[in-house]
């Protein structure tokens, strides 16, 4: 008994050994910077040639962000509105594409190769270059000017975020590379025998999709949504990133204020993720 216990203790020590490098890295490159930036967000930072001075200012930075700043709240609202439109587009689009490539169609491997291209491009500055120069067109949407029709049909308040998202519609679709992969891998987890059984019971493809595929995919759709939110929040096209960067090196506001903005931004994303996760993963009682 005693030997067994010490063996278990040794195992857990070994396990700890495997985690150790990561844990050290976590403290140095993540926990410490996080704590430091939290501290900075409550101070005013003055950088001189030789030293950095912190003056404690309490919640002033946070208060200023919402009440004093005339850029941040507007940009934040625009970011939220755009995300609320882009995230569903990306998730639904990757779901559709995943389902389509999973079909047994002619030229499947060619399509796969093409649909994974975003995995390469989406994190890249190259794609921004292409789109800045107007290479984005070519889909039927642009050709038939669906944009203007849609925008005109919408109420005033939704106009601007929708038109921003639509003007970058193809760009939005370009950020769905990994998501398509996730959906495709998820579809592989559904056993074929389930479909066969359903076919014997007389279900068509339509019923099978709603009753089998979609419920089985639900956790993965939540996962895809989470991934999409994380990706969007760190993407190079992100307007919040620009705002924070501008404040960082601005003489007027400085690093303390930028840190506060970073934390507001992080808190917001965290809340969004928690909401998506709890809503998406809650138990659904069927029957």
């Amino acid at each position, binding site marked *: 008994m005693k030997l067994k216990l010490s063996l278990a203790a040794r195992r857990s020590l070994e396990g700890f050994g495997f985690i150790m490098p990561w844990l050290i890295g976590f403290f140095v*490159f993540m926990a410490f910077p996080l704590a430091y930036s939290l501290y900075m967000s409550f101070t005013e930072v003055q950088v001189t040639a030789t030293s950095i001075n912190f003056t404690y200012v309490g919640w002033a930075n946070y208060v200023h962000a919402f009440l004093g700043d005339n850029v941040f709240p507007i940009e934040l609202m625009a970011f939220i509105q755009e995300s609320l439109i882009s995230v569903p587009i990306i998730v639904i689009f990757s779901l559709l594409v995943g389902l389509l490539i999973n079909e047994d169609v002619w030229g499947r491997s060619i399509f796969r190769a093409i649909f994974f291209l975003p995995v390469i491009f989406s994190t890249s500055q190259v794609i921004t270059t292409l789109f800045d120069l107007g290479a984005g067109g070519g*889909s039927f949407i642009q050709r038939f000017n669906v944009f203007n029709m849609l925008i005109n049909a919408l109420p005033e308040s939704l106009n601007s975020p929708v038109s921003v998202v639509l003007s970058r519609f193809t760009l939005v679709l370009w950020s769905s590379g990994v998501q398509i992969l996730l959906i495709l891998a998820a579809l592989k*987890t559904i056993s074929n025998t389930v479909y066969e059984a359903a076919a014997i019971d007389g279900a068509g493809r339509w019923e099978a999709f709603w009753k089998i595929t979609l419920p089985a995919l639900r956790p993965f759709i939540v996962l895809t949504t989470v991934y999409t939110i994380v990706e969007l929040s760190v993407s190079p096209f992100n307007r919040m990133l620009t705002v924070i960067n501008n404040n960082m090196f601005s003489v007027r506001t400085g690093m303390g204020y930028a840190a506060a903005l970073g934390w507001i931004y992080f808190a917001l994303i*965290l809340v969004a993720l928690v909401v998506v996760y709890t809503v998406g993963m809650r138990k659904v009682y069927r029957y």
Partner: protein
Amino acid sequence: MNTRPGVSKSADALWQWLRPKWLWLRSILMGRGMRSGLVAKAIVLILLIDVALIYVHPILYMLSTMMMSTLDLVDPTIRWIPTELYWDNLVKAFEGLEYWRGLGQTVFVALIATAAQTLSCAVAGYGFARYNFPGKNLLFMLVFLTFIVPPQTIVIPLYLLYREFGWLNTYFPLIVPEMLGLGLKGSLFIIIYRQFFLGQPQSLEEAARLDGANSLTIFARIMLPLAKPAVLVVSLFSFVWHWNDYYLPSMFISHQDKWSLVRRLQGLQQTLDEIYDVNPYGLSTMTEPVRMAGAFLVIAPILILYFIAQRWFTESIERTGLVE
């Protein structure tokens, strides 16, 4: 023989003859049960082609524009195919990027960072998957936390930290975190490895342990070689993402001669902007082919790699159990 009233015998016979053929044709066209018919297949194919165009279009546009001379560009009758292959844009971009130097640096950093991350994340993922120790769940929560922290939130302290270490304008900030299983999307890779190792049978390790192997040997000689699909997926993702990585490197490396290709592309654009913005009539279309050529040069190596590795890549993703 049951004849329907009002229908002549010959019409009925015709119907009898036609019916199975009609049913057969219908099942081919519309599908039956779970099998999809030709019509459904055609619709899927058309949809796929249209979506594929969204992705292929910018790349074709890039390829065609970079080959155009100024004359071709302003000629409205020329849309896709330039009158002649005009290599000057590529040459200009090549020089503007200092291509060989940039390529060397990008490959160097991306290769080291990828190797480091592929190994270090495997070690951590293995620990999380196969061992029990106090606080494991909490620590794994921290892995998730690391995944969702926006880099903007921690970039200032990191900058100060690296300045303290004397790491600014070196490649250490891009490599050392990777060695410890952090860095660019490190947590995602740990999660992928953990999922993979969780799916392996426990008996493998037990057998090796009975044969007297210690934990490190088991990991290095048995589990890591088993994890080939995961290694392939992680290393490819890691390489591509490091190749494209822009934000953090641009914060920590300001010396131009140490810039990666992506950063150089940005620099090239700024230079072009400066040259042509001075002139109020300087149309941006004039510089467009050079920019396109630059973009092509930056992405070409990775595109080539992708088309070579694509087959294994998609297979591996299915075998990693990326999402289970």
